[in-house]
């Protein structure tokens, strides 16, 4: 008997071999030199039944410790409505590939079009692509886009307030692509615009990358930054958290040329790091420089509105080595995730998520400060739902004690400093429990 995934009976194989004019399947491999043939089974377990696979995974799960989450640092524990997982498990969406045949792929093409529209509405930018892998690689691609658009510049400036995990990926792409990345200094958790101005003066900068909210959870004031960048022919790139864009000033309103970031905050499961969603949006002027796929509306022969992949001349399968990005697939199903999430939440839901998270954050900051052991590091700076606390105790020891109590208190970012995020998922009782642990430190 064959494996449950393979329909072939012995009789099928026999008759198919006959059609192929060979006596055995191995004859179909006669062109593989004998020295290359693996004449043994892989050193792997033999096939398992479904029940055995299930047991295997349950054993792995038992070795994990899910925790009440106050960690953020780019990955946020927001609520995921049941509708979302229901829709993304539809196998017509799940088991399709890239919509190469638009006549039988309108489902995929239409949700990408809706996704592009929603990302445009959120970021205040004219154009979005069909999605990227994640926020870190999308930001690196934005850097490459700026370098390509500038034609002969290969230096970018990155604020020190950008998420350091994103920065690492930017640095990797830059190193191999021959791009120079320089810091824009930070002062008190905010980008030093004087430093930015002086570094732009050399007129060799292709792009400037800043963040909102930044890594420390702070909202920076980017008034005039777009003008500064444009005066020196540099593109202004804003990395942002889309969940917050229901409330905060958008990259479009700051005058950004490119808005970029990770869509994980749109209710996507943390899932130990992925899959998430990278997004990249830009002005109409830059549309033809965007990496990845773009879906556009058109008509079919009968005059009906339909959707297709468009502007393909930008892409790797046409341009090959002249392409400025190698991205092929997008993060399709996660784009559907974001689309359904945003349909469910709407503008009012996004605002409420933000407000509840902010209310919780204010409550937690007050509770932690009340212990006398922790202080808000940037007390005069505006923040949403994430903030840095300084502690008069050892952070590693604190994290360990919290974990023992079933709480992930945040992410250590320096000795004596912890980055804490609150979302609508956190109840006051959990915050009281966290403050209780601090009191006993």
């Amino acid at each position, binding site marked *: 008997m064959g494996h449950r995934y393979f329909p072939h009976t012995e009789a099928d194989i026999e008759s198919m071999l006959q059609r192929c004019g060979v006596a055995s399947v191995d004859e179909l491999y006669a062109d593989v030199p004998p020295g290359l043939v693996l004449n043994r089974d892989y050193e792997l377990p033999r096939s398992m039944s479904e029940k055995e696979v299930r047991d295997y995974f349950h054993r792995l*799960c038992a070795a994990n410790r899910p925790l009440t989450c106050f960690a953020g640092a780019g990955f946020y524990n927001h609520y995921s409505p049941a509708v979302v997982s229901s829709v993304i498990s539809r196998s017509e969406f799940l088991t399709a590939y890239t919509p190469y045949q638009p006549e039988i792929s309108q489902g995929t093409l239409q949700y990408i079009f809706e996704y592009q529209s929603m990302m445009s509405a959120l970021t205040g930018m004219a154009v979005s692509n069909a999605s990227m892998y994640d926020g870190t690689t999308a930001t690196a691609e934005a850097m490459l886009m700026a370098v390509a658009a500038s034609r002969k510049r290969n230096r970018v400036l990155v604020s020190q307030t950008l998420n350091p995990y994103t920065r690492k990926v930017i640095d990797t792409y830059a190193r191999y692509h021959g791009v120079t990345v320089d810091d824009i200094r930070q002062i008190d958790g905010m980008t030093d615009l004087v430093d930015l101005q002086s570094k732009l003066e050399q007129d060799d900068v292709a792009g400037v990358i800043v963040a909102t909210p930044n890594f420390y959870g702070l909202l920076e004031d980017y008034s005039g930054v777009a003008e500064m960048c444009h005066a020196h022919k540099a593109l202004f790139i804003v990395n942002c958290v889309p969940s917050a864009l229901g409330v905060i000033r958008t990259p479009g309103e700051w005058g950004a040329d490119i808005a970029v970031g990770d869509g994980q905050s749109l209710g996507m499961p943390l899932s130990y790091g*992925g899959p998430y969603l990278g997004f990249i949006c830009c002005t109409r002027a830059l549309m033809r420089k965007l990496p990845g796929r773009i879906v556009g509306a058109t008509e079919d022969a009968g005059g009906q509105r339909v959707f297709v992949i468009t502007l393909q001349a930008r892409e790797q399968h046409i341009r090959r080595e002249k392409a400025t990005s190698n991205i092929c*697939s997008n993060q399709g199903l996660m784009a559907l995730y974001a689309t359904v999430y945003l349909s469910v939440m709407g503008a009012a839901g996004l605002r409420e998520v933000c407000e509840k998270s902010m209310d919780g954050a204010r409550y937690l900051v007050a509770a932690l400060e009340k212990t006398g052991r922790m202080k808000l590091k940037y007390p005069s700076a505006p923040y949403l739902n994430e903030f840095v606390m300084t502690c008069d105790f050892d952070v590693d020891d604190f994290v360990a004690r919290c974990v023992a109590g079933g709480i992930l208190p945040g992410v250590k970012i320096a000795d004596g400093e912890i980055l804490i995020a609150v979302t609508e998922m956190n109840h006051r009782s959990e915050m009281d429990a966290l403050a209780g642990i601090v009191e006993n430190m």
Partner: protein
Amino acid sequence: MNREYYGKLIFELSRPGRRAYSLPANGCPEGATLLPEGLLRKSAPELPEVDEPTVVRHYNNMSTNNFGVDTGFYPLGSCTMKYNPKINEEMAVLPAMAGLHPLQPVSTVQGALEAYHTLQCYLAEIGGMAEFTLNPFAGAHGELTGLMVIRAWHDSRGDSKRTKVIVPDSAHGTNPASAAVAGLKVIEVKSMPDGTVDVEALSAVLDDSVAAVMMTNPNTMGIFESRVREIADMVHDAGALMYYDGANLNPMLGVARPGDMGFDVMHVNLHKTFSTPHGGGGPGAGPVGVRSGLEKFLPNPRVVKNADGSFGLSQSDGSLGSVSATLGNFAVQLRALSYILSLGCDGLAQAGRLATLNANYVKESLRDVYELPIDRVCKHEFVFDGLADKTSGVSTLNVAKRLLDHGYHAPTIYFPLLFHESLMIEPTETESRETLDEFIAVMRDIAREAAESPEVVKSAPHNTPVGLPDDTKAALSPKVTYFDLMQ
């Protein structure tokens, strides 16, 4: 598929005052927050206002205008559209995995790290490599990562003059594009008439400026490159490394390993060979394997097994850097692990061979009516150069569209670029003989129809939810958002 429900955008179903969300009370005082006006957006984002039943019906109806592997036969060449087992989906979203924050202390994610480490070891055994990283997010991302490994290795030896990559002209478009993004120049080498690498032409361009040769084996025509070991020796003698594009790994499962063929670095597409769903274009995963001696150049972080049997994260000094903040598309990795466990060594050995049998069966059944430019035993896929009888003027595009009318996804068309009318067919091992026989019959019908009433084929498709879209109009004045349509 559902012509009846084709139509509106979610934005067009919006009515002020409707909502589909509910959020919990958090017990904290409300409205404590006042932010400076200048930091707030001026007006609410224009998102739809809809109720929950409307959202569900809208997207479910939309899904019926889509075609997936679960809908029908999907012989899309080089994409390995095999069946995506259902158990994998359940194993990918178990709460004790899905709820983990990527920055949790390693002591609280031992099960997750074990899953990662086990999969990387399994892939290393399957690829004949020393170690894999699972961090890259997709095949193209894996290629980029692999080329960075190669550059990091050359750099570590102070060999900085190697700035070129040799790529056969039949390669996937991502190969040269990945090389360009990695800062390398591409030298394209012409193929032999039988589609294999021209070893002499390759040898002629191989010098000390070459960092690597990228190949896939079997190649894009589904032909096994029998001289691969000879090529590898030549490349290694010239001081360069061999890169294996794992897009076509499926037929080699249980038969031969890239490491044994002489490849130094490779990637696999978990969404092709290892059955994770393509999701309408992602998320996939593109793990990268390296032979012994190259491990330390892999991207950070790496998952390691400690002497006491526990798992940890390590940062290597020689590493190329980071290509992701996290350990990659973790839930995709869980699906692949579930697949490998389900198949086991015995099932994997069958998978490759049955994929090859299915492809040869279809090829032999259609070769009299479609032009077979390379008449050899193929592996997982093969390429026709359009209809055998070209007098009707019916093109590969017409044949592809006519297949849609019959309830099939089309094969890959106009790739590889070696032929004018490429029609690239990859059936995979999970299709039954009956499915293949029906497909063969339809392909033969289309060939007959092309001769007898070519206009019917040329004007296809006829019964899909929508007709042939006007691509020129789409590109001429691009409308890429709902707001563009409103103008």
